């Protein structure tokens, strides 16, 4: 069985790798201490089994799992977490396997046995990902060739609805998102993004100015691109306060 391990804590990673490598039928393909590297690798290289830490900077383990599952639904995922009360409860309800740190070897054995027999369910991970509180600094988007791309929040200018699709706008590109707008509003670095309109969230860094239109609505202008997007009248005051302070 091809296994990939991701944990940003180097000691925990080493320990888990050491234990896993003692099983004959387990082949450790890769071990990552960096969630972004792991994501890049996993998007290209499917694996059979994935051991994932949840609390990781930049890309949360649950989001990573969700994206991988949507691409490779056969991947079996086991979360490894030190402490998260809410997560543990959520896992119990959703019956996704998880291991609490610190763990013993026999616990890993149980887990491997259980995973070999089980079928992953991407619905449960989806619902976990939506209900779970975490922050993301990198999200996945699809380019025109339907390939998954990683997009740093710093590059995003705005995310908006284009018909029924979610559109992620960067300086040079447009990507399609695979999660609803509310998801991005909640999960992207909160201090940086602002819901300017029913169908738009904008990166505050990228705003050049906003000016009123005749209809009492406002238009938002950006620094690097020529797009304008509407700003709800109810949000104007909030935004003004933000820039005035």
């Amino acid at each position: 069985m091809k296994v990939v391990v991701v944990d940003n804590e180097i000691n925990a990673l080493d320990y888990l790798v050491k234990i896993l490598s003692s099983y004959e039928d387990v082949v450790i393909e890769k071990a990552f201490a960096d969630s972004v590297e792991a994501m890049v690798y996993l998007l290209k290289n499917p694996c059979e089994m994935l051991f994932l830490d949840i609390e990781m900077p930049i890309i949360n383990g649950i989001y990573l799992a969700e994206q991988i599952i949507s691409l490779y639904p056969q991947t079996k995922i086991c979360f490894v977490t030190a402490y998260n009360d809410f997560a543990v409860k959520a896992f119990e309800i959703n019956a996704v396997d998880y291991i609490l740190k610190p763990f013993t070897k026999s616990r890993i054995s149980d887990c491997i046995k259980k995973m070999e027999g089980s079928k992953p369910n991407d619905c449960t991970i989806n619902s976990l990902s939506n209900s779970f509180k975490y922050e993301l600094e990198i999200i996945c988007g699809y380019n025109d060739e339907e390939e998954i791309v990683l997009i740093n929040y710093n590059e995003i200018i705005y995310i908006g609805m284009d018909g029924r699709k979610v559109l992620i706008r960067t300086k040079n590109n447009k990507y399609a998102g695979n999660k609803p707008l509310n998801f991005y509003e909640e999960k992207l670095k909160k201090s940086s993004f602002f819901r300017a309109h029913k169908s738009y969230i904008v990166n505050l860094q990228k705003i050049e100015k906003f000016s009123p239109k005749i209809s009492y609505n406002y238009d938002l202008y950006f620094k690097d691109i020529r797009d304008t997007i509407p700003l709800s009248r109810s949000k104007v005051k909030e935004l003004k306060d933000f820039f005035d302070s």
Partner: protein
Amino acid sequence: MQSIGKLVHVYVDGGGCMRDNRKVTQIALFIILTVITLVYFKVITDTNNKKFYTAELGYIDLSNEDINKNIIFLSGEWEFYPKEFKLSGFDKQSYIQVPKPWNDYLYNDLNLGHYSYGTYRLKIKVPQKGLYCFRIITISSAYKFFVNGKELYANGLVGTSAKNEVACWKEGIIPFYTESEDVEIVIQVSNFHYSRGGITRSIILGDPQAINNSASGDIIKSGIMIGIFAGIGFYLLLLYRIRERKYTYLYLGLFCISSVILEAVLNCNFIYGLFNDIPFDLISKLEFSSFICQLIALQWFIKSTYPKEYNDSWFRLINIINFIYLSLSVLTPNDIVNYNDIIYISILIANYIMGTLMLIKSFLKKKKYSLLLLVGSFMMVFTTIIDVLYVYTRFTQNNYTFGILFFLVCQIYVISEEVIDAFESSSEAKNMEIAYLQAQIAPHFFFNTLNNIYCLMDESLPKAKNLILSFCDFLRVKHKFDYRKNIFYSLKEEIDLIKAFVEIENVRCNGFIDLIIEIEEEYLTTLIPQLIIQPIIENSIKHGLKTRPIKITVSAIRNISSLTIAVSDDGEGMAKNMTGKVLDEKRFSSGVGLKNVNYRLMKCFKTKLNIVSELSQGTKVYFEIPMEV
């Protein structure tokens, strides 16, 4: 049009700012009190359209008076025939002062006493024939009113003993038409119900329209007062319901409600307007019991406001007196206790002396708000004195009501301040709670550290041991930390804690954190609040450390009168991270640690956190602590 600078300055909002609007409210209070007082003095000294005529030997000449313009108060020497009800045959030339009780009037070399009857007579000359109007506010307790021999009005039923008299204190508005310029007024009065008999308030004469206006003016005045008292009273009772055990509100609320009843009863028009055939005895009982309830509520109020200043035994004594009076006035017939002036005035004086003494005592001890309460109650006492002496003054009655109003405004101010303080302290308590939560070790940190120790045990026992030592150093300080106090220790201790903390974090983060301490030896002994820098470091690591190593520098720079402590890193930076100051507080959930530090800085030194940050350049967080020059 807005544009955004690249460099971001963030000032974390402090939770415990001083209230700066207190001055404003004080000025507002002062203005309100001044206005009330001015209006009051304007009203009582208003002699516009009011003329006082003093009769000589039972005769007043009004022939040169402009009756249409002025209201005439008829006082002075009236003819008086004690123990007689007569309409004609006025021969005996004996006179009595009006307005004044007849109690001291000598009849057969004896005082007439309060319970008696008699006939008053006054002759006046009006400017011309025509329509005029009398207004009789009260004559205790019953009277018949004749003009030129014709009975025009009767209040109650006059009698020669308590048995055949029916008392009534309704106000009389009596219009009449006279053919001649000479008018003879005869008033048959009997009093077997009240401690002061006779005409105790001037009889008023004027144009019917003017008299009506002045009468309805009085009713309106009283209505306004009743409205104000009732409003304040219910507000206070409501406050009491909300804030259980805050009896001050209850007592003051009851004081207001008693004042409402008293005012309604004192201005008889009011109660008669509502209940036309209410018995006189009941009104009297209401009057006296509401009066004593008011005093009881007042005493309890003062006691609950300044519990320590109010001597317990004195309080008990005055309560016993008050409650005895209350029970007597409710249970016994009116003429035993209620109609006895001396008892009720002495109880009033005793209560006032006691209350004022206690307030003075609290004032001397510089208790909060005691001056204001003292001024308020002084005004109440002052107006009451005027009222008690009203017989001898020209002031209109019911100054008392004004005093109560003045007193209440002062009280309401104090209570509003208290309510505001309560709100503030509750939000402060919330801040404290945040501080407390913050002071606890993040469970995630705790478990991860333990897990690291567990994982390291196989690989390298010395490393695991070291980690345990660092963790112990860290825990020792964290556990000593009490969020309720600002425990100070030396900067060195904090630095040691930070070192331990960074060591732990480094085990987890692959040694990515490079901690540099740039503090000169001499500043290491500076006292600082516990855990004031560590949360900043924690924040730096959490937000600054991503995939590349991070350098964190802690420095201390001496200024003239302060020491600037700065934590700078070369991490990711916070960019347009507006600390959630503008976008709602909830957005900035990760900044609780910094908010807590800021809050404690405010509390200890009245300084605050400054944050300068630039994206991918790093963040600098600094604050000042005052130092002696």
